[in-house]
Structure formats: C-alpha cells, structure tokens
C-alpha cells in the first residue's frame, strides 16, 4: 500500500518570466510545430541510417551522394532548425519544473543553447553537403 505524506505548502507566487504572455504562447506553439516536423525528420533520418548500414555504404560513398545534393541540404537544414527551436523550449520547461530555474537568466541560457545547436548543426550540414 502506498504511503503518501501530505505535501509541503505551495504558496502562490508570481511567475518571474522575462517574456511577454504572447511570447510564452508563441514559444509553446513553436515547440508543437517543430515537434511535428521532427517526427517526420527523425523517421526519414532513421530510415536513411538503416539503409546506409544495411547496404554497407562507406563514409566516402555516403559523402559522394550527399555532396552538392540540394535535397539533402534542405532536409537536414530543416532538421537542424527544428531541433534548435524544439530542444531549448522543452529544456526551459524541464528546468523550470525540476530545479525551479526561472526568469531572464533561464531564457537567455536557452536562447544561447538554441543558437549553439543551430551553429553546430549547420556545421554538420555544411560538412556533409558542401564538403
């Protein structure tokens, strides 16, 4: 049998977000929209990986197919942008709920994370498509 002990008091507190209400709502929407894009991107990405591995493609053979290919450039470009949007917004919620990190410092940290993911991802896409 479970043994719940009554929880500590939960005083009402103002939410110290540095973002406007509209921005908070739009972030929520951006996370949902990017999740929808990622669902497709991850599926295509996994199928591509399985195809490459099962057919024993070497790194050189993979690069020869991706280099100069506009289709792959657009696909992985969209993938990177979606991750850069999705991950920081989600992490912002996780950190707010688990370690009670709120406010401007959290928002700035997540913005930096998003930019970092975008730069790292763009480098990877550049390497694979341009060489």
């Amino acid at each position, binding site marked *: *049998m*479970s043994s719940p002990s*009554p*929880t*500590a008091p939960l005083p*009402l*507190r103002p*939410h110290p977000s540095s973002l406007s*209400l509209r921005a908070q709502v739009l972030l929520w929407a951006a996370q949902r929209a990017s999740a929808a894009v990622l669902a497709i991107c991850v599926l295509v990405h996994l199928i591509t990986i399985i195809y490459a591995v099962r057919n024993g493609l070497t790194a050189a053979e993979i690069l020869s197919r991706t280099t100069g290919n506009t289709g792959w450039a657009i696909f992985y470009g969209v993938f990177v942008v979606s991750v850069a949007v999705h991950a920081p917004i989600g992490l912002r919620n996780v950190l707010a709920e688990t370690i009670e990190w709120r406010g401007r410092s959290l928002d700035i940290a997540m913005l930096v994370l998003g930019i970092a993911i975008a730069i790292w991802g763009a480098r990877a896409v550049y390497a694979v498509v341009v060489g």
Partner: protein
Amino acid sequence: MSSTLRVRVWRGQESGRFEPFDVPRLESQTVLDVVTYIQRRLDPTLSYRFACRVGMCGSCAMTVNGKARWTCRTHVSKVAEDDCLEIAPLHNLPVVKDLVTDMTAFFDKWAEAKGQFRGERRRTDDFARVKPESRERVLVDEAIECIGCGVCYSSCDVVTWKPEYLGPAALNRAWTLTNDVRDVAQRERLSAVAGDAGCHACHTHMSCTERCPKFLSPSKSIAGLKRLVLAAALKGKV
C-alpha cells in the same frame, strides 16, 4: 470481507504521522462513513471536512490509498486493499489539521483565471437566450458540472512542480466562461489563462481527467483554451 477494517489516518499538519484505527466493516460503507465513525466513536479530535454526503458539494475530498477521491461516494469495498485503508489530506494544498486542507490557493486561482462571470445586462433587461444546441453551449456541457472538490488539483503533477500553475479546475472554469456568449470579459480571461503559469503549462498527463469523480475532462477544457489563446496570440490579442 472481514469484519474489521484497519485504517491509518493522517494526524497533524505538514509534519505528523499516520495513526491506526480499527473500524467495523459494513455493507455499502463509504470512506466518509469510516472517517465519521472514527471521529464520533474513537477519537473526537479528528478533523475532517464534509457537508452534503451525496457528491454535490465537493467538500470531502481526501487522499485514499494514495489517490485523491471524493470520500462520500467512494465505497470502501472498491478501494480497500487487504482490508486496509490509508486516509490522508489532499496533495498540493497546505494541511490545516489532520484531513483538512487550506483550499485558499485553489480558489484564489479560480479568481486569477477570471473565473467570475461578467455580463453586461442589468436586471431590468430581458433574459439572454442561449440555445441548448448552440456550439458554445454544447462544448461546455460536461465542464459546467464541476463541483470544485479539488481532486484534479491534488492529482496534477504540474501543480506539484510549478506551484504558480493555475491548475485543472480553475482552467476548466475559465473554459466554461470563454464559451459563455453572455460574458464580456473574454480578452482579459484569455490573457489570464495564457502562458507558462496558465493552460500552456499543462503536459496533458490527464491525471485530472483520470481522477475526476464526476468523469469530467479538464484536459479537454485545457486543450480548448490552448487553441483559443493561440488564435488570440496570433492576432495580437494576448
């Protein structure tokens, strides 16, 4: 069914302990009957809250064997495990004493979510006519049945993690008013329920819907609010 029920009841405030009681089992006995028996026959200092005893007032919610329930309509036979019951106050609310919680924060959030109806007609005006089959009225057919028992609020993980979150009941109330064609405070209400402490904090775990004793779906109401608020935000009205 054995003749005796072993009951552990929370005594104290935030800090306290479970105290054991033996209570005779009866047919069709409710958890509220058990608590009442303890207070009237075994320990008159036990504090708990109830009023109507028939599932209308929303006063008697407690945590029974780990889950928030309305005790007046919860039969012992449905929830007792090995003839044992563990009865505690609701989660996510401060404990006043024993099984009584301070519901202030819970109802303050109804007010914060603009849960008050605001019309523009005066009593000298004619009645407003809302057709039962109209879209807005049908949308809130279930949600208006909330009795404010606090079971959903007590069961919500997001309230635990984010105490400023308005919670399922307040948002459900706001949803009923956003669909009330007589109400004139819609824009203000949508702003009140928007954002990180409002409907967008909900993760749709659906514990509220799972535990609601009236079988309502606050999750559905919150989803409706999310859509309304997003549409308003895109138009720059939030």
